[in-house]
């Protein structure tokens, strides 16, 4: 098999672009077994590509759950199959039909730009987009128009990464940059309530109704029908009464915790069967991913821990202040809502854009938690703060590193001085004795 693949390898001189593409997929599929034996060189196959693949692995459960949840939310809004496992085949198919185009567009656009630059600069395709490409679909609303997705990915990869010289050089997190681009450039597509649930449209008179199912669903309908299972039907049904589709955070900013619990139970928020971005909603699955990353030492526990501490400190301060209903939401409930855990596990720990010193990581994480809570609770313009807080601290991460390094240099200089002094005083009597 390996031989066969080696045979089809394009000639680097004759067709550089094809060779670049070939090389990218080849090293993705096979770990190079060239490992240095002696000295202080790299001793195992844990190269950048493997490291990135670990993150992608940690995200797989979220993909599964997110896809299913798209369908689940859709049917709950219509008042059909409200049990989590009822109509599972319909929900799964519905989620897949929404999810696969998002995934494909992200990768075609992002990898396309990546491949082009790799070919242009004449090096192998860098693996950075693996993680960004896996993260971007998870932080988008399920109903995002695909052209907006494409534009935002292009912006993030082009301006956010390639302009800086490619993987490992970027200052701001690429996945977050893509989302923030949608957020500021097309605010109605990401901050409105209805986009968080797929296939629900706002009617002209203000009510919501389900979209008609397209031809794709017809194919599945005939399949399910022949198997004797429930089918999609025609669609276009009205949404059940009193269904607003607002996310917990949207409710909390208006009416505090009481308003949230009227619509969602804490159990729903914990397990994630609520509307939201595709991958952010299920807390236990995110924690599993986070633990996986900590155990494999891909992500740094310092950032996660200090980010939790920062959020708790700010949450307590806000509780003590308590000027608006949102500020009075007890600090521990903040972990149920929104994307705190997702941001903590997968966004803040990005080793490229975070601080790289250990002390710096603690400060960096703490400030993300702190600023994120400020944006979430105090800023009326934005419902959620982690994305912006992380970008904000990405900007300051090099500065934190700079001062941590300076402090280290100063401390060592002092220690050196302190060590020199006794040595001098010890040396002086010895010298005196020698003279005598």
């Amino acid at each position, binding site marked *: 098999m390996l031989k066969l693949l080696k045979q089809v390898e394009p000639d680097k001189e004759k067709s550089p672009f094809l060779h670049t593409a070939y090389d990218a997929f080849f090293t993705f599929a096979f770990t190079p077994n060239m490992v240095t034996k002696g000295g202080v060189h790299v001793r195992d196959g844990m190269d950048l590509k493997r490291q990135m693949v670990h993150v992608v692995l940690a995200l797989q459960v979220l993909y599964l759950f997110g896809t299913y949840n798209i369908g689940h939310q859709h049917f709950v809004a219509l008042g059909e199959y409200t049990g989590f496992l009822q109509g599972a085949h319909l929900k799964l198919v519905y989620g897949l039909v929404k999810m696969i185009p998002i995934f494909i567009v992200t990768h075609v656009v992002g990898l396309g730009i990546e491949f082009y630059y790799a070919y242009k*600069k004449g090096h192998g395709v860098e693996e950075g987009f693996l993680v960004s490409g896996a993260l971007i679909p998870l932080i988008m609303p399920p109903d995002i128009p695909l052209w907006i997705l494409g534009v935002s990915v292009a912006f993030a990869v082009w*301006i*956010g990464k*390639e*302009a*800086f*010289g*490619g993987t490992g*050089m970027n*200052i*701001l997190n690429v996945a977050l*940059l893509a989302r*923030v681009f949608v957020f*500021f450039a097309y605010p109605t597509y990401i901050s409105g309530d209805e986009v968080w649930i797929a296939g629900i449209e706002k009617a002209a008179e203000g009510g919501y109704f389900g979209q008609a199912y397209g031809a794709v669903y017809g194919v599945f309908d005939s399949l399910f029908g022949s198997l004797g299972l429930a089918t999609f039907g025609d669609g276009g049904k009205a949404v059940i009464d009193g269904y607003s589709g607002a996310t917990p955070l949207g409710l909390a900013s208006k009416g505090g915790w009481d308003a949230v619990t009227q619509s969602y139970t804490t159990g729903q928020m914990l397990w994630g069967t609520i509307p939201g971005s595709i991958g952010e909603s299920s807390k236990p699955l995110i924690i599993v991913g986070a633990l996986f990353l900590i155990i494999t030492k891909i992500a740094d526990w310092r950032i996660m821990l200090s980010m939790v501490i920062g959020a708790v400190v700010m949450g307590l301060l806000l509780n003590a*202040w308590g*000027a*608006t209903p949102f500020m009075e939401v007890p600090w521990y409930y903040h972990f149920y809502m929104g994307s705190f855990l997702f941001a903590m596990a997968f966004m803040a720990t990005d080793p490229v854009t975070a601080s790289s010193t250990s002390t710096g990581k603690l400060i960096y994480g703490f400030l993300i938690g702190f*600023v994120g809570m*400020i*944006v979430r609770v*105090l*800023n*009326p*313009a*934005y419902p959620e*703060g982690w994305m*912006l*807080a992380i*970008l*904000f601290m*990405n*900007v*300051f991460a*090099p*500065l934190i*590193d*700079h001062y941590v390094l300076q402090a280290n240099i100063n401390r060592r200089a002092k220690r050196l001085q302190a060590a020199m002094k006794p040595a001098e005083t010890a040396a002086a009597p010895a010298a005196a004795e020698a003279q005598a």
Partner: protein
Amino acid sequence: MEFLNTFIKAAFVENLVLAYFLGMCSYLAVSKSVSTAFGLGLAVIFVLGITMPINWLINEYLLSESGLLGMDLTFLRFILFIAVIASMVQLVEMVVEKYSPSLYSALGIFLPLITVNCAILGGSLFMVSREYNFSNALAFGLGGGFGWFLAIIAIAAIREKIRYSNVPPALRGLGMAFILTGLMGIAFMSLMGIDPAALTAGK
């Protein structure tokens, strides 16, 4: 409390560089290393913090119709403001030259050029158009200066870091600085819209 509100607003929410894009010339030119950026940032904090209250006094007691001269002399505003700023910058320049010659030579022409740094004149004019009182003017001066200081040392640290990056040749130097400023502006938009005054009013 009002003092603090204005300070926070000027420093973070309505950052002079990253929200209004004022004072770009020295911001882009002196942000190559953190230590010089730090020095220039301090100079700007000082100049803004001093000139704003002085300009407020001038505007209130000399230029306005209710002032000491009893005439509407607001057409002299620009000249007088610039004169105050220039004299303050001269003061800073002499101090820096005396106590930190290395910083003085590193800043070079950009130290006297603080005079025409639009962030500073802009700050004074914002103060007039927003009708701040004296303590607010002081807070706005210090806060605006602090925001400028933060922005310049942040971009200086980033530029020190990307010196080792493989930036496309066409973008090296200024091109990159412009892209960075834009991206930093996006990051600072996270705080835009927070109104400290409204929050304390709700209390």
